[in-house]
C-alpha cells in the first residue's frame, strides 16, 4: 500500500475529511493522505499546542530538550529504523532524489542535530545556554537577563530538501516554542516522520508540534495561524515570502529564507600539480552534485583562476570525470520531462556556440542528462538549469568575482573556495560586502555546520525576546 497519513496533529482534534496528494515516478507512486483543515480546526490544534507547551516545554530544562532531540535523530542512524525505511522507500518518488541521495541526506540530518552540535549552536548564539532556562546575571548589562521564545511559531516549509524543516522545528524547540508547520506540497512526508521520531523519544515534547498541509495562501487557515503566532518562519520563493509577510501584524517576528544562489572559486595555486587539481575537481563535483543542485548551498558556477599549470578547460574536463564518479556512487534523481528538456536545450545551445568558439566546450554524461559541465569564457554569473549542470568560467583574478556576481547580488549565499588561506580574507571581505553569508572550503558547501548563520542570521536569536530584570546581583 503506497498511501500514508501525512500529518502530525493532536489526537484530540477530530479529523473527518481527507484529500490525497499524488506523487508518481517512473517505477512507483505514493499517495499522501492529508486532512482537510479549516480555521476552526487550526484553532483547536493551536489550543492544544499552547496547552502542551505550558504544561511541559516552557518548564523543561534546555538540556532535556537537547537530549530528546539528540536521541530522536540518533534513531535515524539505524538503517532498520522504521521511519528511515519509510523515508528511503517513498522520498525518491516524492522528492525526485535518488534513493542513495536520500540515504546520504538522512545521514547528514542525523549527524547535524546530535547533542554536541546542538550545544555548539546554542552557545554560539547565546554564550550562556542557561539564559533560556532562568534569569542569569549579565555582568556587562548589570542586570539579570532571560530569553523568551515565542509561544507559537508557524512554519511555512517549501521545497524538497529535508534538512530545512528539521532545522526549523528544532530551532523552535530550542527556544521552547510550540510549532505549527505547513509542509510543502512537494514534500509532505519527512517533517511528519521527523515529528513521529520525536514522539518515540519524548511524547511531551512532540505534543508541542503540529504539522500538516494546506493550500498555501488559504485565507481562513492562515488568518487563524498567523494571528495566533508570535513568530512566522517562511521558506520559499520571493512570491511565497511576500504573500506571507503581507498577512502578518507588525508585532509578529517574521523570519524568511528566500531562494538563494551559490558558487565555487578555484585559485590558480591549486591547479599547479595534478594531484591537487584532481582533488579540487573531486570536491567541486561533490558540491555541484549533492542535492542535485536543488539546495541554496549548491554551486551553479565554478570560477577558475587562470595562470595555474592546468587550464580552466582541463579543469572542466577533470570536473566532468569527477561528476561521473560521483554519479556512479550517488546517482541523480529522475527528472520530469521539462527539466530534462532544459538540460538538452542548454547542452545544445553551448554545443552550437562551441562550434564557432573553441573556448566553449560541453562535457556531458553519455545517453543521459545525469551531469553536464560547460566551459564558458563568458564568465558573468548565470543560474544553472539545475540537476547537476555546472558552468566552469575562467577568470583572470579571484578579485574579479564580485563584479561577475553583481546580477545575483540579492540572492547570494554560499561560496566554496579552493584557494590559499592568505587569500581567503580579502576575497571574503569583498564577498561579505556584497551579501555573501558563508565562505567555506570547496567540497563542504553541501553540509553547512549546525551553528551556521543561515543567510547571515542567527536563527535562535532571531526568535528571542529578552527580559532585563534590573535588580541587584544576589549575594
Amino acid at each position, binding site marked *: 500500500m503506497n498511501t500514508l497519513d501525512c500529518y502530525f496533529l493532536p489526537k484530540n482534534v477530530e479529523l473527518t475529511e481527507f484529500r490525497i496528494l499524488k506523487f508518481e515516478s517512473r517505477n512507483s507512486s505514493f499517495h499522501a493522505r492529508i486532512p482537510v483543515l479549516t480555521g476552526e480546526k487550526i484553532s483547536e490544534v493551536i489550543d492544544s499546542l499552547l496547552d502542551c507547551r505550558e504544561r511541559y516545554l516552557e518548564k523543561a530544562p534546555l538540556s532535556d530538550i537537547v537530549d530528546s532531540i539528540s536521541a530522536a535523530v540518533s534513531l535515524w542512524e539505524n538503517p532498520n529504523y522504521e521511519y528511515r525505511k519509510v523515508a528511503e522507500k517513498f522520498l525518491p518518488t516524492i522528492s525526485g532524489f535518488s534513493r542513495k541521495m536520500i540515504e546520504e541526506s538522512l545521514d547528514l540530518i542525523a549527524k547535524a542535530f546530535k547533542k554536541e552540535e546542538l550545544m555548539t549552536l546554542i552557545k554560539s548564539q547565546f554564550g550562556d545556554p542557561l539564559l533560556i532556562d532562568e534569569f542569569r546575571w549579565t555582568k556587562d548589562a548589570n542586570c539579570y537577563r532571560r530569553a523568551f521564545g515565542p509561544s507559537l511559531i508557524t512554519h511555512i516549509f517549501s521545497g524538497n530538501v529535508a534538512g530545512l524543516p528539521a532545522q526549523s522545528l528544532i530551532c523552535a524547540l530550542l527556544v521552547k516554542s510550540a510549532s505549527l508547520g505547513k509542509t510543502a506540497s512537494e514534500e509532505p512526508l519527512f517533517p511528519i516522520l521527523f515529528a513521529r521520531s520525536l514522539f518515540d523519544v519524548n511524547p511531551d515534547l512532540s505534543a508541542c508540534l503540529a504539522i500538516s498541509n494546506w493550500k498555501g495562501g488559504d485565507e481562513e487557515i492562515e488568518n487563524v495561524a498567523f494571528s495566533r503566532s508570535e513568530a512566522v518562519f517562511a521558506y520559499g520563493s520571493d512570491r511565497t515570502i511576500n504573500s506571507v509577510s503581507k498577512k502578518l501584524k507588525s508585532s509578529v517576528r517574521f523570519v524568511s529564507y528566500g531562494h*538563494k544562489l*551559490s558558487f565555487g572559486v578555484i585559485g590558480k595555486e591549486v591547479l599547479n600539480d595534478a594531484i591537487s587539481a584532481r582533488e579540487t575537481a573531486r570536491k567541486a563535483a561533490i558540491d555541484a552534485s549533492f542535492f542535485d543542485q536543488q539546495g541554496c548551498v549548491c554551486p551553479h558556477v565554478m570560477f577558475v583562476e587562470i595562470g595555474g599549470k592546468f587550464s580552466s578547460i582541463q579543469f572542466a574536463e577533470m570536473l566532468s570525470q569527477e561528476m561521473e564518479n560521483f554519479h556512479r556512487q550517488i546517482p541523480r534523481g529522475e527528472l520530469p*520531462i521539462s527539466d530534462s528538456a532544459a538540460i538538452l536545450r542548454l547542452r545544445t*545551445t553551448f554545443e*552550437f556556440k562551441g562550434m564557432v568558439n573553441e573556448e566553449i566546450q560541453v562535457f*556531458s554524461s553519455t545517453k543521459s542528462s545525469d551531469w553536464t559541465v560547460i566551459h564558458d569564457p563568458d564568465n558573468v554569473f548565470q*543560474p544553472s538549469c539545475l540537476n547537476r549542470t555546472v558552468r566552469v568560467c575562467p577568470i583572470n583574478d579571484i578579485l574579479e568575482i564580485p563584479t561577475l556576481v553583481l546580477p545575483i547580488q540579492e540572492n547570494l549565499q554560499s561560496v566554496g573556495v579552493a584557494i590559499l588561506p592568505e587569500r581567503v580574507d580579502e576575497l571574503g571581505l569583498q564577498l561579505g560586502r556584497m551579501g555573501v553569508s558563508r565562505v567555506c572550503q570547496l567540497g563542504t558547501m553541501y553540509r553547512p555546520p549546525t551553528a551556521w548563520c543561515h543567510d547571515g542570521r542567527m536563527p535562535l536569536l532571531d526568535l528571542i525576546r529578552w527580559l532585563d530584570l534590573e535588580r541587584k546581583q544576589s549575594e
Partner: protein
Amino acid sequence: MSIRNNEKLYSMIFDEKYLTLSETLDREISQYIESLGNDPNGTQFNRLALKLFEFQYTYNELYQKFCDRRSIVPGTVRDWKQIPAVPTIAFKEAEIRSFPATEQVHFLQTSGTSQAKQGKILFNHLGVKYWKLSNRMSAQQYLYPSGKVLRALLLVPPLELAPNLGISNAVPNFVLRDATNRPEYFMGSTGLKGQQLIARLKECEINNDPVILIGATFCFVHLMDYMKEKGKIFRLPPGSVISDGGGFKGKSREIEKSEYQSMLMEYFGLPQSHIVNMLGMTEFSGVFFENVLKNYHERKSLPRFKENTAWTRTVVVDPDTLEEVPKGQIGLLKHYSLGNISTVLGILTDDVGYAIGNGFEVIGRVSKTESRGCSISLDEFINKKGIK
C-alpha cells in the same frame, strides 16, 4: 560525450557535385511528395532520407560537426530513425543551412518569446520551393479531401506586412486556388479586422458560399470574444472549415482544447469534423494537420490526432536518453521531413506529446523549470529579472 579541440578541419566545397546532387534530390523528392508517397512499406522514404542525410552531412558544416560528435555519419546509418535530429534551439544560436551563404534568398524568424532569443531559418530557392510544396500538399490532403475549392478568409497578417513570419508564409499555401478564389486577409497592421470579417461571414452565410477560415489560434479567441460582444453567431454553409494553429502564445486567454473546440462549433455552426487544428514550425517545412476532415471524407471513424504525411515522420523520444519511447508514452516530439532540404531533415522539438496511429498528439510545450528545493533555476531567474 566529450567535445575536444582536435576536431577535423571543416570546409564545405560547393562544387559541380553539389549542384548535381541537389538536382537529383530535388527531382526525386518532389516526385515523391507530389505522388503523396505511394510507398506502403516506407522503403522509398528511407532511401530518400538516407540520401538527403548524406547530402546535408556533406554540405552543412555545423550539422557535420554535430553528427561527427555523435559518431553517426552516412554509411553507418541504415534506418532514417538513426539520423541525428537537431534540437530547435540550435537555430537560435547558429545558421543551419545545407547550401552556400550566397544562395540565400529568404529567411523566417522563429517565434521567440520576449524571454528567448529569436532565431533565423534560412532558405535558398530550393528551400522556398519545398516550404511551399510541402505546405500545399499537406493542406490538400487534410483541408480539401473532397478537392472542392472553398472561399479562403485568413486570420493571419498578409506576407507584405509580415514577410518573415512563419504562419504568414505558410498559410497562403493552404488556399486551394481557382480562377475566382483569392484569399482575403482580415489581419492588418492594427490587428484583427473583426467588423469586416463578420460582415463577410454574414455574406457567405446568406449566399450559401462555403468558406475556410484559417488563422492563428489566439486570433480565433479574439474573434469569438468580439462576436460575443456584438451578439453574433453564424451557421456557416455546409462544407465550411476552420483550421487554426500556433496556440495562444500568451496573446489571448488560454482555453482548454475541448472547450475551445466547442466554442468554435457554437460560434460558427460547424461539426467537430470540420475543425482542424494544425501544428507548424518555422524550423520545419510542412505542417501537421489533424486527420478529422480527411477521416470524415473517407468515412473512417478514428480518433483525432495529427497525421504524418508520406514525406514526414514523427518519433517520440525520452528527453534523457533521446531514445524512442514505447508507443503511447509521453516524450519530446522529433520530426523528420524530406521537405527540409535546405536545413536539416530531422529536428527535435520542445513539444511534449505521444505517438498515435500514423501520427502523434501534442500535449503542450515543456514547462519552465523550477527549483524543487531552495535554489533558483535559470528559468525562474529570467522570469524574475527579464533577459539582459
